[in-house]
């Protein structure tokens, strides 16, 4: 868990009372209808959320959610139909896979994953809608304002950039698109893949890709050595070295010069 940087606290203390800025993406068929019913039933809910209507929770790209957080929204809520209720058959299952992925990645950062939430609300669950929204607002309020624009938040900005890049990664997006098929229908050999085995594979791929993007982000402005990267990313230098090799193979990272015993690397244009 991150601690809000000093300036955020100041802002909260001095300026007009801070109100969290939260967007809730609601699918047309269940959660948006549940919100409508909350209105019809006059369920009273704190006002600090704004609904954006979408057709299906499956539409929500996790990258969009993180981009919105990166640009300063205090929280993003995605609400879909309950599993099995999806108007488009199974869009919400895909939403679940993608949101888990995004939250997992955010969990690796000091920003944390609590500002992004996926949940289910049916068209008749006005109370549940109110509860989920209220709890989310409360939890965002507890975390305080999004620290992204504060001085001294460069680390967080770098981390979220790495998350966004990871969420746009071709290999991972292709994998996420397949997870459900593999999980429910087996692999191409007609074998059942163990849930734990699949989860481990996905976990490894996500960790690797996140680290590589984090390296690219750190080496964007400044030439970096492996020990320096290892320290900033709090990982074993041996592991960082492996990713540096891979990134050089991909022509994403270039060798610039040697300082002392350490070669320095820089992110290449276009990454």
């Amino acid at each position, binding site marked *: 868990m991150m601690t809000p940087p000093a300036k955020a606290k100041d802002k909260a203390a001095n300026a007009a009372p801070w109100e969290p*800025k939260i*967007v809730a*993406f609601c699918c047309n*068929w269940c959660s*948006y*209808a549940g*919100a*409508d*019913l*909350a*209105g*019809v039933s006059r*369920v*009273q*809910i704190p*006002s*600090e959320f*704004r*609904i*954006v*209507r*979408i*057709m*299906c929770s*499956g*539409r929500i*790209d996790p990258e*969009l959610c993180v*981009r*919105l957080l990166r*640009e300063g*929204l205090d929280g*993003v809520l995605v609400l879909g*139909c309950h599993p*099995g*209720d999806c108007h488009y*058959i*199974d*869009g919400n299952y*895909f939403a679940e896979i*993608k949101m888990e992925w995004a939250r997992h990645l955010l969990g690796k950062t000091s920003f944390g994953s609590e500002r992004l939430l996926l949940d289910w609300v*049916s*068209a*008749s*669950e*006005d*109370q*549940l809608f*109110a509860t989920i929204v209220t709890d989310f607002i409360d939890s965002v309020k507890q975390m305080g304002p999004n620290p992204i624009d504060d001085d001294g938040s460069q680390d967080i900005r770098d981390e979220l950039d790495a998350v966004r890049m990871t969420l*746009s*990664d*071709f*290999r*991972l*997006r*292709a994998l996420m*698109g*397949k997870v*459900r*098929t593999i999980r429910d229908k087996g692999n191409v050999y007609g074998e059942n893949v163990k849930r734990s085995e699949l989860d481990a594979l996905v976990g490894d791929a996500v960790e690797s890709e996140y680290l590589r993007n984090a390296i690219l982000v750190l080496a964007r402005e400044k030439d970096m050595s492996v020990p320096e990267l290892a320290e900033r990313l709090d990982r074993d230098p041996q592991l960082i070295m492996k990713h540096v090799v891979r990134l050089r193979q991909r022509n994403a990272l270039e060798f610039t010069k040697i300082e002392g015993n350490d070669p320095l690397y820089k992110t290449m244009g276009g990454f």
Partner: protein
Amino acid sequence: MADKAIGAVMVVGGGIAGIQSALDLADGGFRVYVIERSPSIGGVMAQLDKTFPTNDCSMCILAPKLVDAGRHPNIDLKILSEVTGFKGKPGNFKVEITRKTLSVDLDKCTGCGECAEICPVEGTNPFDENLGVRKAIYVPFPQAVPLVYTIDRSMCIGCGECERFCGPNAIVYDMEETVTESIKVGAVILAPGFEEFDPSKLTAYGYKDYPNVVTSIEFERMMSASGPTGGHILSPLDGRIPEKVAFLHCIGSRDSSLGITYCSSVCCMYSLKEAIIAQEHTPGLKTHLFAMDFRAVGKQFEDYRIRAEEELGIKITKNNRIGSIEEDPVTRKLTIRYIEGDHILDEEFDMVVLGVGLRPPINGDYLARTFGVELNEHGFTAHSTFKPLETNVPGVFVAGAFRSPKDIPDTVAEASGAAALAAAVVVEGRGDLVTEIEYPEERDVEGQEPRIGVFVCHCGTNIGGVVDVPGVTEYARGLPGVVFADDNLYTCSADTNKYIANMIKDHDLNRVIVASCTPRTHEPLFRQTLKEAGLNPYLFEMANIRDHCSWIHMHEPNEATEKSKDLVRMTVSKARLLEPLVKPRIPITPRALVIGGGLSGMTAALEISEQGFEVDLIEKTNALGGNLRRVTHSITGEKPQDILKETIAAINERKLITLHTGTEIETLTGYMGNFDVTLKDGAVLKVGAIVVASGAIEYKPTEYYYGRNPNVITQLELEEEMTKGAFAPKNVIIIQCVGARDENHHNCSRICCTTSMKNAIALKKANPNTNVYIIYKDIRTYGFNEDSYLEAARLGVVFARYSDESKPRLSYTKKGLVFRVFDRFTNTEITIAPDLVVLNAATHPDPKNKVLAGLLKVPLTQEGYFLEAHMKLRPVEFATDGIFACGLALGPKFISESINQATAAAGKVAAVLSKDFAEAEANTAEVDSEICTGCGTCIQVCPYSAIERGEDRKAVVNAVLCKGCGTCVATCPELAIDIHHYSNEQLYQQAIALIKNGGGA
């Protein structure tokens, strides 16, 4: 042209059956009048919390149908109305309708609800089974269609407050009490539904005296999140959460003492559903069901039961009809006495739910007299097996629970079937009475700078009483791109819509925003206004500042006003990026393909041709008839073989039907309206719609020496033997559930119990001295099939019950067969030496379904039956447009049920083929082929098979199949897909506008 059929149909009853019939007919080009006695359509389904076996939220799946019916230009909803006269002949009936007016001008009421806010009179709400509260002026439930208020005269004290507060002046106290009109239609569908059994006369259950004894429908309202207890199961006695709940089955069903002998068909499953949901809602809750037999006869119902018993620990005790409930006067606990094995047990519960049966509708007798329709001895409508939806009055059809107690999918299939039969009566009048609106030519707005008009609604005081509407309007005027803004008292009124159209012209607006209520109900209305003003309807957005703002922040006017400004600003940000869209038009080849020449396929082909369309009927064998060829007699006395001969003759005579026997499909490509099919015999077909009626097969038993001992045969073989004559077995044993409800085949075959009764009765009638034993797990003669069970018992058929732990054993010695079973009913071992053992071999899916499903790109169930688009509301459709299914291909069912489904599928096909073109969704996905690498990930996630690889392996979205969910967009690894109307940039700009006033980078 006096004799030409009138292109209109009357549907009596606005429950799910009536709504489905109305939508099918209206889509098929006919005018429909829906006559509903209550103030809203929706019926009992609107009261339900969840539906079995998928636990779908009932209102979630029903509400879109209500809205569709409410706004369909070809459907007239006549609420608070009853039929008071009927005369004429098929194609030309005159029906008299009488409507109660109840002092509200339905055309003026906007449903804003201010009248109910001010109304001082509170009473109980029948929609909530009188557990909740409503005012004297009310809507029955929030999603009511039409959304208009009515006054309950029995409650109203005449204070005049509602009139004083009604903005649109819709309340007129001195209105005539009733209005009578005469409507001309060509056919009538009766769908009045059912009445719940009232258990108050059964004093032994204490329903009136013990507060914690409730009916199943009361329990259903408690479970509903929008019900009186907000979805919590609470004891009506003291408002506490119960720990143990009992469910008693067959209350007002299968009870000769009440003169109600039939089975209500749905209570076993709804009780189980209620137990499952109750346990999910209330951690630690224990439920116990008491039934005579547990009748889980529908598709995947048995899987549902197994999950409930094994995973949730729900207890089902069979062999028990509970006769009474005792309440402890001190603890108020309820005691139930039941039998388990050799023991008599007493068990205490906090609540008892009475699984009340389905009775004929309250106005059933009246409707029968008015229309001259015959009823059966149970008070439901009378039909023959082979004409299950037709009455004795030509042109008058029946669908749903008025025919017999039944669940929602059967009801929906019947509703579509009745619609198809009604359509065939009035087919010459197709298109005569439908409403077609002429729109002015669309203005070209391409390349223009956004000129946005914002209309902010007061909704009486609903919004204006909380939000500073003039302030929001003023704020909107200053937003980039906005050139006009105004506030209106009721933006949805006809006057304001005219005003919007004028402002579009006067200010040259090219985007329109209405900030008011929910787009789910009102977007279609405003889009219509745009079209009438010559603007593309997709240049419109709504900001929901009522349901999502003023109503849920009633006591925070400042916050609500700021939020309204934010919502308007966010909507303006999206509106700047709106683009005109056109619904793709798909040309339709007016010809159908029916796969399978059994009874279902033949019925579908005949009914499609009845509506004037050509049909290709393909049958893989060389003869028509399918499984029906082996059915020799029916329980209702009709002769199946005679009817089969007549049906085959009709197929051969019908010029519109082209028969292809001894062949199968080789290849199949295309989509709704345009399928290209080649057959293995080389024939090439081009069709617009497809019906799958490929049937199912009889299980070949491996048990009980079948195939090794000539005296062990299957049920169908028994029927063949019986027709040969000189067949006089002395001791016949019929074993149920062979190849069904076992480890390898979970589900129930639905029809076998009744088939056993049919054949047992025939054996007994042929020779009363024959001993017939039926060895069963549960007797599942649901509905009126129960009559056959009673008759078999009356004729002396002996029943013995086995369980999975004590399966029947057959041994084979030199002296002959010896049969042993431990009877769970009497708890004794029974030994019989039969000279004939009949195995009730289950219905199984055809293994060839896999190939066919692959060709059609439609899914199968795990078992291998075809899987329909939605278990409840789309029972004969696939998710893929233009492909339908019916009969045994979908799962085991009776002849009459197959005919209903086949007729329903035929009606759906005819509705598709009746149009020159179909309109698809406009907000579809589109692939940027410059970016696409052809990885195919999108193809895997698309639920509608709407994405294919083009020539260069790159993905191409077929816009006519795409439904616009956007899952491919959010999944595409290369970010190469975007979707119209919910594009990446539109969503981003709308969301980011919350923190960045001028829009984000």
